[in-house]
């Protein structure tokens, strides 16, 4: 038995991770960028930068700005496209042996499902994570993730085209997070991950200009952790499928809080940018915690928030 087994977690769709710590999309490149800073083999999973059918150039600069306890980004989903990803990035990722979860994005349902089909035949991919925080170009640019009907449709069409486990990554920019979560579950999602970034603006009052060229950006980092915890807790109580918690995780304690709230696993995002070895540090910390608690499995703490 020993420590190794005690950190194993099931995240749905038959996918088991050696520990509950993954790296979040867009904050960990394609993995290789971090090879100098931590042992990639120790990670529970690697979620790569969002991939689209065609390469995307991204938004004009400035793309990032630091805000109170967090940062705003408007990278504009710059990525190498699925073909390049498969030929240039997958060979390295395959060699590591850590589960690779490919985050996908699109501007139409067709694009999502075509991506799912393409990824289905690429060797070495463990799951697909669907970023539904993207604008639906055919529906006036309203994000897929804000409309439960669209969430269900996207989930169904991705599921129909792949045999890989499908994780639906929810947008927090909604009134009722449980509505989109249930829609994903109804559509057949194996897992739900949340939260993506919260929409925000930073302003320079002297020039009276937005600090990002795109005006609006996505807020991430410690600033969003309470919101993320609340949403993870609500969703974990609303659906039966496993939930992955994301949002402002910087430390072991943060990760454990998400698990208590109901997350079966977590993703570390912005913290990778600050300290590239954060994920490995948290894995060590979770190991220590399990030992200290003397429990058989870290899964014992999932969803144990006491509200009495």
């Amino acid at each position, binding site marked *: 038995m020993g420590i190794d087994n005690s950190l194993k977690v099931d995240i749905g769709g038959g996918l088991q991770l050696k520990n509950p710590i993954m790296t979040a999309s867009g904050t960990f490149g394609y993995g290789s960028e971090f090879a100098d*800073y931590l042992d990639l083999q120790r990670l529970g999973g690697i979620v790569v930068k969002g991939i689209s059918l065609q390469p995307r150039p991204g938004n004009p600069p400035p793309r990032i700005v*630091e805000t109170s306890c967090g*940062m705003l980004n408007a990278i504009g989903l710059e990525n190498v496209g699925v073909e390049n990803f498969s030929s240039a990035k997958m060979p390295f990722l395959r060699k590591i042996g850590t589960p690779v979860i490919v985050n996908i994005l699109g501007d139409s349902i067709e694009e999502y499902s075509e991506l799912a089909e393409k990824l289905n035949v690429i060797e070495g991919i463990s799951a697909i994570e669907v970023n539904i925080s993207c604008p639906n170009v055919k529906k006036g640019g309203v994000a897929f993730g804000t409309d439960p009907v669209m969430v269900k449709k996207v989930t169904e069409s991705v599921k129909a085209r792949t045999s890989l486990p499908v994780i639906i990554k929810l947008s927090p920019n909604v009134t009722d997070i449980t509505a989109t979560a249930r829609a994903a579950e109804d559509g057949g999602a194996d897992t739900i991950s949340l939260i993506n970034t919260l929409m925000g603006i930073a302003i320079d009052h002297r020039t009276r200009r937005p600090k990002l060229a795109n005006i609006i950006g996505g807020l991430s980092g*410690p600033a969003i952790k309470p919101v993320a915890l609340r949403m993870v807790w609500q969703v974990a109580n609303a659906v039966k499928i496993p939930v992955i918690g994301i949002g402002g995780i910087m430390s072991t304690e943060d990760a454990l809080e998400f698990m208590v709230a109901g997350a079966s696993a977590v993703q570390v995002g912005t913290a990778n940018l*600050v300290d*590239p*070895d954060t994920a490995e540090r948290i894995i060590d910390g979770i190991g220590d915690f399990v030992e200290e608690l003397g429990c058989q499995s870290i899964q014992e703490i999932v969803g144990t928030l006491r509200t009495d």
Partner: protein
Amino acid sequence: MTAIKFGTEVLRNEKITDDICRLTLLAPAIAEKARPGQFVMVKASDDFGLPLLRRPFSIHQATTDGQLQILFKSIGRGTAFLAKRQPGDILSLVGPLGKGFTLPSQPTNICIVGGGMGTAPLFYLAKKLLRSNTEHKAIKVFLGAATASEIKVLQNDFAGLGGLTVLVATDDGSTGHHGLVTELLTDNLDQAGNWQVYSCGPHPMMKAVASYCFARNWSCQVSLETLMACGISACLGCAIRGSGQGVDSNKPYLHVCKDGPVFAAGDVAWE
């Protein structure tokens, strides 16, 4: 490449002016690998972890005995925190990062143009040029600053290297030429010669230097700045517009932390 992250000890904190500091750190693993024009990401946060993001600083000097210097102006929270560091304090650094200056392998005429804190990486460049096996025909250094006090120490440091000429311009005329550093170029560079130009400083200055070089067909390398979140090409936040002619001609954007911070001036879209 292999950059690393670790705690480094502050050995010295010199106040150049009220708000310009030079920190000397004991960082052998970084110093050993550092090339001129590369940078480090420094954690400049207090006990509460704020500010959150690391701050990029050019390598001002790296020595064979493991010392690394950064030279910076206190302009905000992170730099104010760094300005207060004392010998014995530990700072977390990631580096060396990015692509540095390309040094000529043939003897040539070299012109270095620095403005403000842009002078920081140029000192290490000058030192490496002087210590390289290639004996250059001439090395001329042009430094611009707001006022005399901001440039005196550096001017002396450059002059102290020997084997180069240093000319200075200040905004207030308190020392050297009264005006822009770029105004010194025409009178002091043999226009018939072929110069390898290196520049770092405020964007308008580098833009002027770049167009000066384009007009004369001189090779010019610039070191650029953007806001950065990671410095290790993970976030893609440090994009600048490329000219479409250089390194990645099919891509509209270049990334300062990975493709730079030093670029051939012709690779950059000067807007």
